[in-house]
């Protein structure tokens, strides 16, 4: 029981990180029908920006809560710029091209970003001292002590907060409405006087800033990053997006949590070596029974 609870806590934390990245995949897919394979690397860039800012702020005497907020904002802004630039350079010129062109371009961008960070920051792993320490301990008298660290609480709370804001943005604001309109009919959206290119750019900006928050959480949680983390995390988040139903935003959140939970429970109870296989096999099994993912809408062709 105690062991289960601990895995649940760990899984939810990891799931939050995946969920935040998965939203970027699902939004971009929704609006331009393309899998942005560079998104995982945007997450990695976010992690690096957060790491660098943490190290810089460590030299100052600013108190911890303010540092956290500042790092969050800095990594969101910087990473959003990266996301925006990637879209402008690699996808926008190909918008009218055939469907696979931006996909190939995305793979290229992914390699570019990895090598850029490798060249700029070095190939060795980078470490960060724990920023938030301590936590609550439960079941102290039993043999397995369950720990809920402050960091885990922080990660889950920030994730919930951002997802709430994000949901409001999509459902309540004019921008969200324009994004949903673009998903359905880009030509008609432009004829309504809406700048479609700008709406797409905004999608990349929002997706990238959410990924950067995931990157910040990642570097705080694991304390170790290198230029290659974007690959596996990106693929996992993509799996999460597909699991939840690609194009569906609640689906991405749900998929992220599920992948996080599956991965932790598998490593907790079965074997840690095969945790990635567990996550990806789940996807295969789910897609057999729900071809559009859990919350995805099937394409209905009206005859």
């Amino acid at each position, binding site marked *: 029981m105690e062991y289960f609870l601990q895995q649940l806590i760990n899984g939810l934390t990891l799931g939050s990180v995946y969920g935040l990245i998965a939203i970027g995949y699902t939004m971009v897919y929704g609006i331009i029908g393309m899998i942005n394979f560079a998104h995982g690397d945007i997450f990695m860039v976010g992690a690096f920006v957060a790491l660098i800012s943490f190290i810089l702020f460590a030299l100052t005497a600013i108190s911890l809560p303010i540092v956290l907020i500042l790092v969050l904002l800095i990594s969101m802004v910087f990473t959003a710029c990266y996301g925006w630039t990637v879209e402008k350079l690699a996808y926008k010129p190909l918008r009218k091209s055939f469907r696979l062109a931006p996909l190939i371009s995305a793979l290229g961008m992914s390699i570019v970003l990895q090598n850029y960070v490798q060249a700029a920051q070095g190939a060795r792993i980078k470490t960060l001292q724990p920023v938030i320490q301590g936590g609550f301990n439960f079941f102290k008298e039993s043999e397995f002590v369950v720990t809920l660290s402050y960091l885990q609480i922080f990660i889950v709370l920030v994730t919930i907060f951002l997802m709430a*804001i994000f949901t*409001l*943005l999509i459902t*309540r*604001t*004019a*921008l*969200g*409405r*324009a994004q*949903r*309109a673009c998903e*359905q*009919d880009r*030509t*008609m*959206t*432009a*004829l*309504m*006087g*809406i*700048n*479609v290119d700008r709406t797409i750019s905004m999608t990349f900006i929002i997706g990238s800033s959410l990924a950067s928050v995931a990157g910040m959480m990642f570097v705080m949680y694991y304390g170790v990053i290198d230029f290659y983390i974007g690959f596996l995390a990106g693929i996992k988040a993509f799996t999460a997006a597909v699991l939840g139903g690609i194009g569906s935003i609640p689906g991405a959140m749900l998929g992220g949590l599920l992948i996080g939970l599956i991965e932790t429970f598998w490593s907790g109870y079965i074997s840690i070596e095969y945790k990635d296989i567990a996550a990806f096999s789940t996807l295969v099994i789910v897609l057999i029974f729900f071809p559009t993912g859990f919350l995805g*809408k099937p394409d209905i062709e009206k005859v």
Partner: protein
Amino acid sequence: MSEKLLSVENLTMKFGGLIAIDDLSFSAMKDQITSIIGPNGAGKTTVFNCLTGFYKASSGSMFLNKDNKTLDLKKFSDFKVAQKAGVARTFQNIRLFPQMSVLENMMVAQHNKLMAASGFSLLGLINAPSFLRKEKEAKEISKYWLDIINLTNRADDNAGDLPYGDQRKLEIVRAMCIEPYLLCLDEPAAGLNAKESAELNKLLKFIQKEKKTGILLIEHDMSVVMGISDHVVVLNYGKKIFEGTAQETKKSPEVIEAYLGTEE
């Protein structure tokens, strides 16, 4: 005599060797309904595509008179056609946002003013009063139009679930939410039954009279064309073969020959 809204001068559109529009000149007056009719393939929709920036005309010019300023429509493309030039259009097939509610379809068309009022979304997130006020105004405008086409009680249903005739009307009032100077309607009566086309006539007349919006209409349904047009332009093989009032058009031998046909 009302003032001139749109003047098309010597418009030519070539696709390789095919001349889709051949030296076409006509004009449309403010608060009038101008119909473009002609057989299939006469180039009617191509005219719309040139006007709304989908095609770049091979030669010729199109000017829109907007608040005493003359705009060269050739310079507008993509979203600027609606936003800057004030030209709205609908398509032959229905292009609503089927998975958004009826109300949301109307709100999307009012995006630009809402976006400005929401401070590019930031104020919208915190529900700032200035944004809520604009949002409320936009809803009022939507309700106003939905009342006219009797769809107020279905405002929260998905647009894709409406009956065909209602979707057609929704598309027209949605275009009106852009507050256009010129409304281009491509076969709005296609697929409507007699009762529905009569309602359409009423709606278009209302827009013309109350909103002082110029309407450019492509239509095959002669009950609509002859019932409401102030001015008719007849095309055949990309050339204008006749221009005049509805009554004159009905009697014109060239039009009867090329398009209307004779009654037995």
